Protein backbone atom coordinates (compact mmCIF):
# COMPACT_ATOMS: atom_id res chain seq x y z
CA UNK A 1 0.00 0.00 0.00
CA UNK A 2 1.23 3.48 -0.86
CA UNK A 3 1.25 5.53 2.33
CA UNK A 4 2.51 8.71 0.63
CA UNK A 5 2.51 9.47 -3.09
CA UNK A 6 3.89 12.76 -4.35
CA UNK A 7 3.71 13.73 -8.03
CA UNK A 8 5.20 16.81 -9.74
CA UNK A 9 5.17 18.77 -6.49
CA UNK A 10 6.39 22.36 -6.57
CA UNK A 11 6.33 24.55 -3.47
CA UNK A 12 7.08 28.24 -3.28
CA UNK A 13 7.80 30.16 -0.08
CA UNK A 14 8.51 33.87 0.16
CA UNK A 15 8.74 34.14 -3.63
CA UNK A 16 11.36 31.35 -3.88
CA UNK A 17 10.93 27.86 -5.28
CA UNK A 18 11.76 25.62 -2.30
CA UNK A 19 10.67 22.24 -3.67
CA UNK A 20 11.10 21.57 -7.40
CA UNK A 21 9.21 18.83 -9.21
CA UNK A 22 9.26 16.24 -6.43
CA UNK A 23 8.17 12.71 -7.35
CA UNK A 24 8.32 9.85 -4.89
CA UNK A 25 6.28 7.29 -3.04
CA UNK A 26 6.54 5.73 0.41
CA UNK A 27 5.11 2.27 0.96
CA UNK A 28 3.69 0.69 4.09
CA UNK A 29 6.49 -0.50 6.37
CA UNK A 30 9.15 1.77 4.87
CA UNK A 31 11.66 3.38 7.21
CA UNK A 32 12.76 6.51 5.41
CA UNK A 33 15.47 9.04 6.21
CA UNK A 34 15.13 12.56 4.86
CA UNK A 35 18.49 14.27 4.48
CA UNK A 36 19.77 17.48 2.98
CA UNK A 37 21.44 20.76 3.91
CA UNK A 38 19.84 23.33 6.22
CA UNK A 39 17.37 25.45 4.27
CA UNK A 40 17.17 22.75 1.60
CA UNK A 41 13.40 22.31 2.04
CA UNK A 42 13.08 19.22 4.29
CA UNK A 43 10.63 20.78 6.76
CA UNK A 44 8.76 22.48 3.92
CA UNK A 45 8.36 19.12 2.20
CA UNK A 46 6.98 17.50 5.36
CA UNK A 47 4.60 20.34 6.18
CA UNK A 48 3.34 20.38 2.59
CA UNK A 49 2.73 16.63 2.70
CA UNK A 50 0.80 17.19 5.93
CA UNK A 51 -1.33 19.89 4.27
CA UNK A 52 0.06 22.70 6.41
CA UNK A 53 1.64 24.64 3.53
CA UNK A 54 0.12 25.49 0.14
CA UNK A 55 1.43 23.91 -3.07
CA UNK A 56 2.29 25.76 -6.26
CA UNK A 57 1.44 22.65 -8.28
CA UNK A 58 1.42 18.87 -8.08
CA UNK A 59 -0.54 16.22 -6.23
CA UNK A 60 -0.15 14.58 -2.84
CA UNK A 61 -1.89 11.38 -1.82
CA UNK A 62 -1.99 10.07 1.75
CA UNK A 63 -3.06 6.45 2.15
CA UNK A 64 -4.10 6.52 -1.53
CA UNK A 65 -6.46 9.47 -1.06
CA UNK A 66 -5.94 12.98 -2.42
CA UNK A 67 -4.87 15.21 0.44
CA UNK A 68 -7.93 17.43 -0.14
CA UNK A 69 -10.18 14.45 0.61
CA UNK A 70 -7.99 12.87 3.29
CA UNK A 71 -9.48 13.11 6.79
CA UNK A 72 -8.04 10.12 8.64
CA UNK A 73 -5.46 12.17 10.52
CA UNK A 74 -5.46 9.70 13.41
CA UNK A 75 -3.43 7.44 11.10
CA UNK A 76 -0.59 9.95 11.22
CA UNK A 77 1.57 11.09 14.12
CA UNK A 78 3.90 14.05 13.63
CA UNK A 79 6.71 15.16 15.90
CA UNK A 80 7.77 18.66 14.85
CA UNK A 81 11.24 20.15 14.66
CA UNK A 82 12.59 21.13 18.08
CA UNK A 83 9.56 19.53 19.73
CA UNK A 84 11.53 19.09 22.93
CA UNK A 85 12.34 22.81 23.17
CA UNK A 86 9.05 23.60 24.86
CA UNK A 87 8.39 25.87 27.83
CA UNK A 88 9.56 23.88 30.86
CA UNK A 89 7.02 25.73 33.01
CA UNK A 90 4.10 24.27 31.08
CA UNK A 91 2.09 22.63 33.88
CA UNK A 92 1.50 19.13 32.62
CA UNK A 93 2.67 15.68 33.67
CA UNK A 94 4.19 13.15 31.28
CA UNK A 95 1.06 10.97 31.51
CA UNK A 96 -1.29 13.91 30.87
CA UNK A 97 0.85 14.95 27.91
CA UNK A 98 0.96 11.48 26.36
CA UNK A 99 -2.82 11.20 26.75
CA UNK A 100 -3.23 14.22 24.41
CA UNK A 101 -2.20 11.83 21.64
CA UNK A 102 -5.66 10.22 21.91
CA UNK A 103 -7.25 13.42 20.60
CA UNK A 104 -8.39 13.68 17.01
CA UNK A 105 -11.05 14.87 14.65
CA UNK A 106 -13.49 12.09 15.49
CA UNK A 107 -12.91 12.35 19.21
CA UNK A 108 -13.65 16.04 19.79
CA UNK A 109 -15.11 16.87 23.18
CA UNK A 110 -14.95 13.24 24.28
CA UNK A 111 -13.66 12.31 27.72
CA UNK A 112 -10.90 9.70 27.75
CA UNK A 113 -12.20 6.27 28.73
CA UNK A 114 -10.59 3.18 30.29
CA UNK A 115 -9.37 1.93 26.91
CA UNK A 116 -7.67 5.29 26.21
CA UNK A 117 -5.81 5.18 29.52
CA UNK A 118 -4.78 1.57 28.88
CA UNK A 119 -3.26 2.69 25.58
CA UNK A 120 -1.48 5.54 27.36
CA UNK A 121 -0.03 3.15 29.97
CA UNK A 122 1.02 0.72 27.22
CA UNK A 123 2.83 3.48 25.28
CA UNK A 124 4.56 4.72 28.44
CA UNK A 125 5.71 1.18 29.15
CA UNK A 126 6.87 0.54 25.56
CA UNK A 127 8.95 3.70 25.65
CA UNK A 128 10.32 2.83 29.12
CA UNK A 129 9.02 5.97 30.83
CA UNK A 130 6.33 4.54 33.13
CA UNK A 131 8.43 5.51 36.15
CA UNK A 132 8.28 9.21 35.26
CA UNK A 133 4.56 9.24 34.30
CA UNK A 134 3.61 11.63 37.09
CA UNK A 135 6.60 13.94 36.70
CA UNK A 136 6.12 17.34 35.06
CA UNK A 137 7.41 17.52 31.50
CA UNK A 138 9.78 20.33 32.44
CA UNK A 139 11.55 18.13 35.00
CA UNK A 140 12.66 15.26 32.75
CA UNK A 141 15.82 14.78 30.68
CA UNK A 142 16.12 15.41 26.93
CA UNK A 143 16.20 11.67 26.21
CA UNK A 144 13.04 11.18 28.27
CA UNK A 145 11.37 14.08 26.47
CA UNK A 146 12.05 12.43 23.12
CA UNK A 147 10.61 9.15 24.34
CA UNK A 148 7.61 11.04 25.72
CA UNK A 149 6.90 12.53 22.28
CA UNK A 150 7.23 9.10 20.71
CA UNK A 151 4.84 7.69 23.34
CA UNK A 152 2.38 10.48 22.50
CA UNK A 153 2.70 9.53 18.83
CA UNK A 154 2.20 5.85 19.69
CA UNK A 155 -1.05 6.27 21.64
CA UNK A 156 -2.60 7.46 18.41
CA UNK A 157 -1.82 3.98 17.12
CA UNK A 158 -0.70 5.63 13.87
CA UNK A 159 0.27 3.83 10.71
CA UNK A 160 2.67 6.60 9.73
CA UNK A 161 5.04 8.41 12.08
CA UNK A 162 6.77 11.55 10.80
CA UNK A 163 9.61 13.10 12.77
CA UNK A 164 11.29 16.38 11.86
CA UNK A 165 14.84 16.47 13.27
CA UNK A 166 13.74 14.94 16.55
CA UNK A 167 17.18 14.62 18.12
CA UNK A 168 19.29 17.64 17.30
CA UNK A 169 21.75 18.71 20.05
CA UNK A 170 21.68 15.36 21.79
CA UNK A 171 24.61 13.19 22.87
CA UNK A 172 25.42 10.12 20.70
CA UNK A 173 24.23 7.58 23.29
CA UNK A 174 20.79 9.20 23.57
CA UNK A 175 20.67 9.43 19.77
CA UNK A 176 21.46 5.77 19.43
CA UNK A 177 18.77 4.80 21.97
CA UNK A 178 16.25 6.94 20.11
CA UNK A 179 16.99 5.36 16.73
CA UNK A 180 16.84 1.94 18.37
CA UNK A 181 13.28 2.72 19.55
CA UNK A 182 12.35 3.89 16.05
CA UNK A 183 13.77 0.67 14.58
CA UNK A 184 11.67 -1.33 17.06
CA UNK A 185 8.56 0.54 15.98
CA UNK A 186 9.37 -0.15 12.34
CA UNK A 187 10.44 -3.80 12.61
CA UNK A 188 8.28 -5.02 15.48
CA UNK A 189 5.18 -2.84 15.16
CA UNK A 190 5.23 -2.42 11.37
CA UNK A 191 4.97 1.37 11.49
CA UNK A 192 5.93 3.40 8.45
CA UNK A 193 8.45 6.00 9.60
CA UNK A 194 9.74 9.17 7.97
CA UNK A 195 12.48 10.94 9.83
CA UNK A 196 14.44 14.06 8.97
CA UNK A 197 17.96 13.49 10.22
CA UNK A 198 21.50 14.81 9.94
CA UNK A 199 22.83 11.56 11.37
CA UNK A 200 23.91 9.95 8.10
CA UNK A 201 25.22 6.78 9.78
CA UNK A 202 21.85 6.17 11.42
CA UNK A 203 20.06 6.78 8.11
CA UNK A 204 22.22 4.41 6.07
CA UNK A 205 22.47 1.76 8.80
CA UNK A 206 18.90 1.57 9.95
CA UNK A 207 16.63 2.80 7.16
CA UNK A 208 15.58 1.22 3.87
CA UNK A 209 15.03 4.40 1.86
CA UNK A 210 16.54 7.85 1.76
CA UNK A 211 15.09 11.06 0.38
CA UNK A 212 17.60 13.80 -0.47
CA UNK A 213 16.13 17.27 -0.38
CA UNK A 214 17.93 20.30 -1.69
CA UNK A 215 15.19 22.05 -3.70
CA UNK A 216 15.33 18.97 -5.95
CA UNK A 217 14.02 15.83 -4.30
CA UNK A 218 15.57 12.42 -4.99
CA UNK A 219 14.64 9.11 -3.46
CA UNK A 220 16.81 6.00 -3.32
CA UNK A 221 16.62 2.55 -1.76
CA UNK A 222 19.41 1.73 0.67
CA UNK A 223 20.96 -1.65 -0.12
CA UNK A 224 24.37 -3.29 0.27
CA UNK A 225 25.57 -1.95 -3.09
CA UNK A 226 23.84 1.45 -2.97
CA UNK A 227 25.96 4.32 -4.32
CA UNK A 228 25.82 6.27 -1.07
CA UNK A 229 28.37 8.80 -2.28
CA UNK A 230 26.25 9.51 -5.34
CA UNK A 231 23.13 9.98 -3.18
CA UNK A 232 24.89 12.33 -0.81
CA UNK A 233 26.31 14.45 -3.61
CA UNK A 234 22.79 15.01 -4.87
CA UNK A 235 21.86 16.36 -1.48
CA UNK A 236 24.98 18.19 -0.36
CA UNK A 237 26.82 19.04 -3.59
CA UNK A 238 29.67 17.59 -5.67
CA UNK A 239 32.40 18.25 -3.11
CA UNK A 240 30.72 16.40 -0.26
CA UNK A 241 32.50 13.25 0.87
CA UNK A 242 31.33 10.80 3.52
CA UNK A 243 33.19 7.59 4.24
CA UNK A 244 30.67 4.87 4.95
CA UNK A 245 30.17 1.19 4.20
CA UNK A 246 26.83 -0.51 4.71
CA UNK A 247 28.47 -3.68 6.09
CA UNK A 248 29.73 -1.63 9.05
CA UNK A 249 26.18 -1.58 10.36
CA UNK A 250 25.83 -5.33 10.74
CA UNK A 251 27.29 -5.52 14.23
CA UNK A 252 25.02 -2.73 15.30
CA UNK A 253 21.94 -4.62 14.18
CA UNK A 254 23.08 -7.82 15.86
CA UNK A 255 23.34 -5.91 19.13
CA UNK A 256 19.74 -4.72 18.69
Amino acid at each position, binding site marked *: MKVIEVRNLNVMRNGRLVIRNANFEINKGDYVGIIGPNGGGKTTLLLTILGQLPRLSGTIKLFEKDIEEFNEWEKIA*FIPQDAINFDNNFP*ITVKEFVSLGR*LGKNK*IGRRLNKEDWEEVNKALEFMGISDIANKRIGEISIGQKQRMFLAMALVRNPELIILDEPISNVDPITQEKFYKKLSDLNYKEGKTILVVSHDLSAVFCRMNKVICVNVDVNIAEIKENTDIQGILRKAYGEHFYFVFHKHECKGEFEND
Partner: protein
Amino acid sequence: MIELLSYQFFQNAIIGGCLIGIICSWIGLFLVLRRQVMIVDGAAHTAFGGLALGLLLGIDPFITALIIVIISILIINKMKAFTDSAIALMLAIGFSIGLIIISITRGFSIDIFSYLFGSILTISREELLIISIVTIFIAIFLLLFHKELIAITFNERNARIMGIPVDLISNIFNLIIAITIILSIKIVGVILIVALITIPALTALQIKTSFNNTVIISVLIGVIGVILGIFISALYKLATSGVIVFILVSIYAIVYLYSKIEIIKRRTS
Protein backbone atom coordinates in the same frame (compact mmCIF):
# COMPACT_ATOMS: atom_id res chain seq x y z
CA MET B 1 -19.33 39.93 59.22
CA ILE B 2 -21.93 37.15 59.11
CA GLU B 3 -24.60 39.83 59.25
CA LEU B 4 -23.47 41.07 55.86
CA LEU B 5 -24.58 37.77 54.33
CA SER B 6 -28.19 38.48 55.27
CA TYR B 7 -28.31 41.40 52.82
CA GLN B 8 -29.60 40.54 49.35
CA PHE B 9 -27.10 42.85 47.58
CA PHE B 10 -24.22 41.20 49.45
CA GLN B 11 -25.39 37.69 48.56
CA ASN B 12 -25.63 38.75 44.91
CA ALA B 13 -22.12 40.19 45.07
CA ILE B 14 -20.63 37.05 46.63
CA ILE B 15 -22.33 34.63 44.19
CA GLY B 16 -21.70 36.80 41.11
CA GLY B 17 -18.13 37.49 42.17
CA CYS B 18 -17.40 33.80 42.71
CA LEU B 19 -18.81 32.84 39.30
CA ILE B 20 -16.75 35.52 37.54
CA GLY B 21 -13.73 34.52 39.63
CA ILE B 22 -14.12 30.92 38.44
CA ILE B 23 -14.26 31.67 34.70
CA CYS B 24 -11.62 34.42 34.80
CA SER B 25 -9.05 32.25 36.55
CA TRP B 26 -9.93 29.21 34.39
CA ILE B 27 -9.56 30.90 31.00
CA GLY B 28 -6.74 32.96 32.49
CA LEU B 29 -4.56 29.86 32.78
CA PHE B 30 -4.77 29.23 29.03
CA LEU B 31 -4.15 32.91 28.25
CA VAL B 32 -1.11 33.07 30.55
CA LEU B 33 0.37 29.94 28.95
CA ARG B 34 -0.30 31.31 25.45
CA ARG B 35 1.33 34.62 26.44
CA GLN B 36 -1.92 36.34 25.40
CA VAL B 37 -2.85 38.06 28.63
CA MET B 38 -2.38 41.54 27.18
CA ILE B 39 -5.06 40.78 24.58
CA VAL B 40 -7.52 40.88 27.48
CA ASP B 41 -6.13 44.22 28.65
CA GLY B 42 -6.34 45.72 25.16
CA ALA B 43 -9.83 44.35 24.53
CA ALA B 44 -11.06 45.44 27.99
CA HIS B 45 -9.97 49.01 27.29
CA THR B 46 -11.82 48.98 23.98
CA ALA B 47 -14.86 47.94 26.04
CA PHE B 48 -14.66 51.37 27.66
CA GLY B 49 -15.27 52.95 24.23
CA GLY B 50 -18.11 50.50 23.63
CA LEU B 51 -19.77 51.29 26.96
CA ALA B 52 -19.59 55.02 26.30
CA LEU B 53 -20.99 54.50 22.80
CA GLY B 54 -23.93 52.51 24.19
CA LEU B 55 -24.73 55.22 26.74
CA LEU B 56 -24.52 57.87 24.02
CA LEU B 57 -26.85 55.97 21.67
CA GLY B 58 -29.24 54.90 24.41
CA ILE B 59 -28.55 51.20 23.78
CA ASP B 60 -27.64 48.74 26.55
CA PRO B 61 -23.93 49.66 26.98
CA PHE B 62 -22.93 46.04 27.63
CA ILE B 63 -24.19 45.03 24.17
CA THR B 64 -22.19 47.73 22.37
CA ALA B 65 -19.18 46.90 24.56
CA LEU B 66 -19.47 43.19 23.70
CA ILE B 67 -19.58 43.95 19.96
CA ILE B 68 -16.59 46.31 20.19
CA VAL B 69 -14.58 43.79 22.27
CA ILE B 70 -15.27 40.96 19.79
CA ILE B 71 -14.17 43.20 16.90
CA SER B 72 -11.01 44.24 18.75
CA ILE B 73 -10.07 40.61 19.54
CA LEU B 74 -10.61 39.70 15.87
CA ILE B 75 -8.36 42.57 14.76
CA ILE B 76 -5.67 41.69 17.33
CA ASN B 77 -5.71 38.05 16.15
CA LYS B 78 -5.57 39.13 12.50
CA MET B 79 -2.44 41.21 13.17
CA LYS B 80 -0.65 38.13 14.55
CA ALA B 81 2.82 39.27 13.51
CA PHE B 82 2.41 42.52 15.45
CA THR B 83 0.25 41.41 18.37
CA ASP B 84 1.71 43.84 20.92
CA SER B 85 1.33 46.77 18.52
CA ALA B 86 -2.23 45.67 17.70
CA ILE B 87 -3.09 45.56 21.42
CA ALA B 88 -1.65 49.06 21.94
CA LEU B 89 -3.59 50.30 18.92
CA MET B 90 -6.90 48.83 20.09
CA LEU B 91 -6.35 50.05 23.64
CA ALA B 92 -5.68 53.58 22.42
CA ILE B 93 -8.61 53.63 19.97
CA GLY B 94 -11.10 52.25 22.52
CA PHE B 95 -10.07 54.56 25.31
CA SER B 96 -9.84 57.66 23.13
CA ILE B 97 -13.33 57.03 21.69
CA GLY B 98 -14.62 56.69 25.25
CA LEU B 99 -12.98 59.94 26.34
CA ILE B 100 -14.31 61.84 23.32
CA ILE B 101 -17.86 60.62 23.98
CA ILE B 102 -17.57 61.56 27.67
CA SER B 103 -16.39 65.05 26.75
CA ILE B 104 -19.30 65.46 24.29
CA THR B 105 -21.96 64.33 26.77
CA ARG B 106 -21.04 65.02 30.34
CA GLY B 107 -24.25 63.54 31.74
CA PHE B 108 -23.16 59.96 32.36
CA SER B 109 -19.74 60.41 33.91
CA ILE B 110 -20.79 58.59 37.12
CA ASP B 111 -21.81 55.46 35.16
CA ILE B 112 -18.54 55.49 33.31
CA PHE B 113 -16.66 55.66 36.62
CA SER B 114 -18.42 52.49 37.83
CA TYR B 115 -17.49 50.71 34.59
CA LEU B 116 -13.85 51.69 34.97
CA PHE B 117 -13.51 50.40 38.53
CA GLY B 118 -16.42 47.98 38.94
CA SER B 119 -19.49 48.07 41.16
CA ILE B 120 -19.88 44.54 42.43
CA LEU B 121 -22.20 45.50 45.29
CA THR B 122 -24.83 46.71 42.82
CA ILE B 123 -25.30 43.38 41.00
CA SER B 124 -29.05 42.86 40.53
CA ARG B 125 -30.98 39.55 40.55
CA GLU B 126 -31.36 39.75 36.76
CA GLU B 127 -27.64 40.36 36.26
CA LEU B 128 -26.86 37.47 38.59
CA LEU B 129 -29.12 35.20 36.56
CA ILE B 130 -27.33 36.19 33.31
CA ILE B 131 -23.90 35.67 34.93
CA SER B 132 -24.99 32.23 36.22
CA ILE B 133 -26.32 31.03 32.86
CA VAL B 134 -23.27 32.29 30.95
CA THR B 135 -20.90 30.75 33.51
CA ILE B 136 -22.60 27.36 33.11
CA PHE B 137 -22.22 27.50 29.32
CA ILE B 138 -18.58 28.58 29.55
CA ALA B 139 -17.82 25.88 32.13
CA ILE B 140 -19.41 23.21 29.91
CA PHE B 141 -17.27 24.35 26.95
CA LEU B 142 -14.08 24.41 29.02
CA LEU B 143 -14.80 20.94 30.44
CA LEU B 144 -15.73 19.41 27.09
CA PHE B 145 -12.74 20.83 25.23
CA HIS B 146 -10.28 20.73 28.13
CA LYS B 147 -7.75 18.44 26.42
CA GLU B 148 -8.16 20.07 23.02
CA LEU B 149 -7.45 23.47 24.60
CA ILE B 150 -4.33 22.08 26.27
CA ALA B 151 -3.11 20.64 22.93
CA ILE B 152 -3.77 23.94 21.09
CA THR B 153 -2.09 25.93 23.87
CA PHE B 154 0.95 23.64 23.82
CA ASN B 155 1.49 23.59 20.05
CA GLU B 156 -1.12 24.97 17.67
CA ARG B 157 0.36 23.54 14.47
CA ASN B 158 0.68 20.06 15.93
CA ALA B 159 -2.90 20.27 17.18
CA ARG B 160 -4.02 21.01 13.60
CA ILE B 161 -2.10 18.01 12.27
CA MET B 162 -3.75 15.85 14.94
CA GLY B 163 -7.08 16.76 13.33
CA ILE B 164 -8.27 19.07 16.12
CA PRO B 165 -10.52 21.86 14.69
CA VAL B 166 -8.19 24.57 16.00
CA ASP B 167 -9.93 27.51 14.29
CA LEU B 168 -13.40 26.56 15.54
CA ILE B 169 -12.27 26.00 19.13
CA SER B 170 -10.09 29.15 19.11
CA ASN B 171 -12.97 31.27 17.78
CA ILE B 172 -15.32 30.01 20.48
CA PHE B 173 -12.58 30.60 23.06
CA ASN B 174 -12.15 34.18 21.80
CA LEU B 175 -15.90 34.72 22.11
CA ILE B 176 -15.68 33.44 25.69
CA ILE B 177 -12.87 35.90 26.40
CA ALA B 178 -15.05 38.74 25.09
CA ILE B 179 -18.07 37.66 27.17
CA THR B 180 -15.91 37.18 30.26
CA ILE B 181 -14.49 40.69 29.86
CA ILE B 182 -17.98 42.17 29.65
CA LEU B 183 -19.23 40.23 32.68
CA SER B 184 -16.11 41.16 34.67
CA ILE B 185 -16.61 44.88 34.12
CA LYS B 186 -19.27 44.82 36.84
CA ILE B 187 -16.92 43.05 39.26
CA VAL B 188 -13.53 44.73 38.93
CA GLY B 189 -14.01 47.26 36.14
CA VAL B 190 -12.25 47.72 32.81
CA ILE B 191 -8.86 48.60 34.24
CA LEU B 192 -8.37 45.68 36.66
CA ILE B 193 -9.90 42.80 34.63
CA VAL B 194 -6.47 41.72 33.48
CA ALA B 195 -5.49 41.17 37.13
CA LEU B 196 -8.41 38.81 37.77
CA ILE B 197 -7.47 36.86 34.64
CA THR B 198 -3.72 36.74 35.24
CA ILE B 199 -2.89 36.58 38.94
CA PRO B 200 -4.73 33.35 39.94
CA ALA B 201 -3.18 31.49 36.99
CA LEU B 202 0.31 32.87 37.68
CA THR B 203 -0.02 31.88 41.33
CA ALA B 204 -1.19 28.36 40.47
CA LEU B 205 1.76 27.96 38.08
CA GLN B 206 4.13 28.52 41.02
CA ILE B 207 2.84 25.32 42.64
CA LYS B 208 4.29 23.22 39.78
CA THR B 209 1.77 20.40 39.61
CA SER B 210 -0.30 18.66 36.91
CA PHE B 211 -2.50 20.62 34.47
CA ASN B 212 -5.75 19.53 36.10
CA ASN B 213 -4.49 20.47 39.56
CA THR B 214 -3.22 23.82 38.22
CA VAL B 215 -6.71 24.59 36.88
CA ILE B 216 -8.31 23.69 40.24
CA ILE B 217 -5.78 25.76 42.23
CA SER B 218 -6.15 28.73 39.86
CA VAL B 219 -9.95 28.66 40.22
CA LEU B 220 -9.74 28.30 44.02
CA ILE B 221 -7.38 31.28 44.28
CA GLY B 222 -9.67 33.36 42.05
CA VAL B 223 -12.71 32.54 44.20
CA ILE B 224 -10.87 33.08 47.52
CA GLY B 225 -9.54 36.43 46.27
CA VAL B 226 -13.00 37.61 45.27
CA ILE B 227 -14.74 36.45 48.50
CA LEU B 228 -12.09 37.92 50.81
CA GLY B 229 -11.97 41.08 48.72
CA ILE B 230 -15.73 41.63 48.99
CA PHE B 231 -15.80 40.98 52.74
CA ILE B 232 -12.76 43.13 53.60
CA SER B 233 -13.86 46.00 51.37
CA ALA B 234 -17.36 45.93 52.92
CA LEU B 235 -16.00 45.82 56.47
CA TYR B 236 -13.49 48.63 55.99
CA LYS B 237 -15.46 50.58 53.35
CA LEU B 238 -12.74 50.29 50.70
CA ALA B 239 -12.96 50.03 46.90
CA THR B 240 -13.92 46.38 46.27
CA SER B 241 -12.06 45.92 42.97
CA GLY B 242 -8.87 47.35 44.44
CA VAL B 243 -9.07 45.08 47.51
CA ILE B 244 -9.77 41.98 45.35
CA VAL B 245 -6.69 42.65 43.24
CA PHE B 246 -4.59 43.48 46.31
CA ILE B 247 -5.54 40.17 47.95
CA LEU B 248 -4.77 38.24 44.76
CA VAL B 249 -1.37 39.92 44.55
CA SER B 250 -0.74 39.11 48.23
CA ILE B 251 -1.59 35.43 47.68
CA TYR B 252 0.74 35.42 44.67
CA ALA B 253 3.57 36.97 46.73
CA ILE B 254 3.13 34.43 49.55
CA VAL B 255 3.05 31.44 47.16
CA TYR B 256 6.01 32.80 45.17
CA LEU B 257 8.12 33.24 48.31
CA TYR B 258 7.08 29.80 49.60
CA SER B 259 8.04 28.13 46.30
CA LYS B 260 11.43 29.90 46.28
CA ILE B 261 12.11 28.85 49.90
CA GLU B 262 11.20 25.27 48.97
CA ILE B 263 13.66 25.36 46.05
CA ILE B 264 16.46 26.68 48.31
CA LYS B 265 15.64 24.00 50.94
CA ARG B 266 15.80 21.26 48.30
CA ARG B 267 19.14 22.52 47.00
CA THR B 268 20.71 22.71 50.43
CA SER B 269 19.40 19.33 51.67
